[in-house]
């Protein structure tokens, strides 16, 4: 599209940043604080970005850094209560149980694993973009992805799930 003036280059990313932040922070208010800080920092550094290309990994990189700073500054991390509020609109009622389990499993992953899993699976970023966004080698991205996926698989699928069978109608 032609809407690429300097003032509206960031706006199209906002819904995606909010989606990512919601899963990262686990609740709406913290997530939107994170999005707000990310946008403010991004605007402050916008002219620097223009020389760097790759706006997506730049924006998600800013959010990553802010989130990590935030976790460090509140080491009494409220990870336990995260996740209650995640899905505000969930597709079909039949889905709900499975998605609740997924949401809980997601919040139990380490921050590093959760980040990579979301950036790969939901944001559909390339492994290389992710490496550049979060500042680690690609090999680290791959091993975090692998651990995150295996952990989800163990938590969600190694349990008997009879409910799933009954719902097929």
């Amino acid at each position, binding site marked *: 599209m032609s809407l690429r003036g*300097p003032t509206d280059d960031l706006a199209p990313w906002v819904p995606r940043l909010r989606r990512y932040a919601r899963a990262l922070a686990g609740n709406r208010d913290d997530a939107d604080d994170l999005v707000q800080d990310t946008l403010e920092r991004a605007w402050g550094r916008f002219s620097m970005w223009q020389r760097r290309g790759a706006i997506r990994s730049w924006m998600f990189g800013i959010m990553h850094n802010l989130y990590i700073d935030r976790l460090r500054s509140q080491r009494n991390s409220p990870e336990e209560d995260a996740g209650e509020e995640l899905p505000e609109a969930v597709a079909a009622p039949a889905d709900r149980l499975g998605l609740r389990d997924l949401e809980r499993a997601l919040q139990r992953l380490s921050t590093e694993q959760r980040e990579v899993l979301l950036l790969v699976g939901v944001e559909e970023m390339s492994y290389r973009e992710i490496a550049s966004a979060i500042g680690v*080698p690609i090999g680290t991205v791959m091993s975090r992805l692998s651990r995150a996926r295996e952990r989800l698989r163990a938590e969600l699928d190694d349990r008997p799930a009879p409910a799933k069978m009954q719902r097929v109608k």
Partner: protein
Amino acid sequence: MTPMDPDLPTPDAGSPVSEADLHGYVDGQLPAWRYDEVERHLASHADDRARVETWRRHTEMLHRLLDPVLHEPLPPRLPLRRPAPPLWRGLAAGIAIAVLSAGAAWLARGAVDRAESAASPVATAGPAASAAAQGAPVGELAGFALRAAAAHALYSPEQRHPVEVGADEESHLVAWLSKRLGTPLKVPGLKGVGYELVGGRLLPGDTGPVAQFMYHDASNQRLTLYLTRQPSAPGQATQPAFRFGRDGRVNVFYWIDKDFGYALSGSADRQELTRVANEVYRQLGGS
């Protein structure tokens, strides 16, 4: 997509399929030739096939869990546009006044027929309007017009979910938005000026809910019409003031009429927006 990085494990042709290959397969990040090899491997390795299927299913569930966030109204506190340097603001206010008087002149000439308006929408309206038409500075947007521009920039590039309710459910769309805005709305039909309705959505605004209608032309250029309650101040002129402004690449033609603010946004130029705005104004009972 392009696994050229030195530390990305690029597989050799014919080499055994690794776990990294399986992730790359699920995520669409393998070199094209490697897909066949991975598929052959999966055909004879049920355990890996199960893993891949599970990863895919979880990815798809993550989307179902999180994608609803994409369609939530944005909290108004988010800074969607670059903060303006304070000095510029005073200057912009002056320009806005200049543009406003041009708009009033445009109004004064009354309705013009469509052919004439397409040819020279503002120039017939007198000296002030001509000046505005000939590249005089454009007003910086504020208030609902700025929100309209931001909403246009946000939703008009959207391919999969440009609107909440599509034109195929127009009567539902109108009933829904009328109810939420608390007043019977009409959706202007713009086929006569070359634009077809895509649909609409509800957005948060300063003074309550806001309706956004999206239209596109034959080349898929999109326009959005933003409608918000905008109570007129007592003693305010009964005739609407038409204004034109710009935010980034989004041009906005806007006016306030009978307690409603209207903003027509698009990347189309001023002349085109004026032409369409003329039609919107006419249909919504302005003239």
